[in-house]
């Protein structure tokens, strides 16, 4: 009974994560973007807690704590700070318009379900929905990077991909070895930091964060 409740909770949270991803596609404000990401990360942490409770493996608690701290607090703060410093308030004129983006995102969700369909049959109960959702979140994050111009948005897109990935990790494997998990967190954190540094430098050199202007290297 408790297990069923856990599974339902996890599924619910996972659906919420997907929903956040879709909503993000509809938004053009940077602040909203980052906050959504933070919210998504927190839900991911919640899933981890539920899962830790469900499987009883303690190190997932640590993972949950790390997710909450690193992805839910530190990285969003850092991003907000950068947004303030670099003065990028909103994504003007995305490359793919909002309605089209939403349609494509929906399509991606379908693709994700279609792709994971043969895997799900052989997998466990928890995994079923979550794997498809995690793939969908990864796809949507990637699509966000494709359809938006600003460097900051791309960073957020990447982070959302990571979130999707993380959902996949905990739902299919109930957590990797701790050292790997910590390493991944460290890497993600460093990546964001380094991207932030580069974004800052890019803003200095190009006087914009619009990546569509960076087309000097071609052919």
């Amino acid at each position, binding site marked *: 009974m408790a297990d069923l409740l856990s599974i339902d909770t996890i599924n619910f949270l996972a659906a919420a994560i997907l929903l956040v991803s879709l909503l993000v596609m509809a938004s053009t404000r940077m602040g909203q973007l980052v906050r959504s990401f933070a919210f998504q990360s927190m839900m991911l942490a919640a899933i981890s807690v539920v899962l830790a409770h469900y499987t009883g493996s303690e190190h997932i608690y640590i993972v949950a704590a790390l997710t909450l701290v690193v992805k839910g607090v530190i990285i969003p703060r850092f991003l907000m700070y950068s947004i303030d410093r670099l003065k990028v308030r909103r994504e003007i004129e995305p490359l793919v318009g909002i309605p089209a983006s939403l349609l494509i995102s929906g399509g991606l969700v379908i693709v994700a379900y279609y792709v994971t369909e043969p895997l799900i049959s052989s997998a466990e109960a928890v995994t079923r929905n979550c794997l498809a959702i995690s793939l969908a979140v990864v796809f949507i994050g990637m699509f966000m990077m494709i359809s938006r111009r600003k460097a900051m948005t791309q960073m957020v897109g990447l982070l959302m991909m990571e979130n999707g990935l993380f959902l996949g990790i905990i739902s299919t494997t109930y957590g990797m070895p701790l050292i790997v998990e910590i*390493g991944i967190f460290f890497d993600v954190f460093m*990546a964001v930091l380094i991207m932030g540094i*580069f974004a800052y430098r*890019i803003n200095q050199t190009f006087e914009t964060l619009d990546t569509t202007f960076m087309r000097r290297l071609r052919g």
Partner: protein
Amino acid sequence: MVELLLLVPLVTALLCGLSRSERAIYIFSVAGSLVAALVAFPYCYQAFFEGPVDTGLWYLDPLSGLFMVVIVTITALVSLYSVQYLEHDRKEGEANLKDLRYYHVLLHLFAFSMLMVVVVDSLGLMWIAVEGTTLVSAFLVGFYKKSEAMEASWKYLIICSVGITLALLGIILLYASSVSALGENADTLDWSVLRSVAAQLDPALVKVSFIFILVGLGTKAGLAPMHTWLPDAHSQAPTPISALLSAVLLNCAMYGVLRVHILASEAVPGFSSSLLLFFGLLSLAIATAFILTSRDLKRFLAFSSVEHMGIIALGFGIGGPLAVFGAVFHVLAHSLTKTLMFFGAGNVIQKYRTREMKEIKGLGKTMPATAALLVLGGAAIAGSPPFAIFIGELFVISGALAQGDYLVAGLFIALIVMIFAGMTYRVFGMVSGRPQEGLPDGEIGKLRLLPMLVLATVILLLGLFLPEVMSDALGAVVELFGVSA
């Protein structure tokens, strides 16, 4: 023990970071990389001939041995070459002492992360190390802080990070696929363990997982059409770093693909091979188009790397003892030859202050030694005997013919002939002709010719002879792929 090997580049990076004088940095850097090579070779020997070394965290088998040789050798040569390259930059005012320190610290951290990739047993740790290489080298790509360099490193960072994220998804799925064989709480991502149960992995998961890993790590390995970051990063990085990226980093990513390929081909025979074959041919074809039309010397060489990674993928994809041997040999041959080419390009670019091949003329007159080495390297990289790359290509062709893949062999030959034409046209075009007015004759720095000379000799000798110890070592690598030479 393996820790010692990993410690050397870390300590070197630390020493370089603490040094106050230019001279000390150079000495630490060169000495450190040489020590790393010296330390690494016994391990490689052990890995090749005394069975896999498995200490839980670390795992050394012939495949790691092969890539380790490449990493330490090229790093040593690059650090030697960097000395006068950076001296020249200093003279030109492109870099100050701080940059110099920064460069060397990152260089050795880069080497560290790449070594890490090939010595860890866990695929998860390998992933961390691969991501680490991206993060470290992004700074090296952006070393010159010009707008193009910024652009290149941003693209490098973003595209490779996306790729690597996908690869991690693939690794997770692979892990998931082992659950049925190893049980719920096996809690392991170790390759050696997975290898022992490879045949029992869930095929559906393995297929999807290999797709993710191929696309993800393939991005980093420069397989088309995910290679797009590669010409940008290679062209903007300082030339010694380009050499390192092209000759070592791509191989490290390919190493990851191969690890999974070994597992996948046991779980789902033929699936991963055909994908590798497809991407190999596609990379070759796309690289051909760019090699024929490139104008920028370093982009040109970068596309040549795409081509050669394609050949390596093709060789593994074709399978069979001949093609796999060819591909294994090609890993070695390509890194040595490409390093030679980038070193030559570095000399030329610093001398002519341009990367436009149309503006580089008369090398034979202005820098005869570099020109001669470039001609040798150009012939070699284009696949002409008696150089090492030819042997690799010959074995890949033979392998294709032996497997009855006549169409593949035909396409491969057609593409490499076109590439040969494009390659030689450009290289010989630069060597001949009349140099621009007012360009003084003479090499810039004699020391930088030394690593080039070493490389040229090695690729020539490798093209002509294959000592028994080497053929045994390569044979051990080939055996890992389930075919015996």
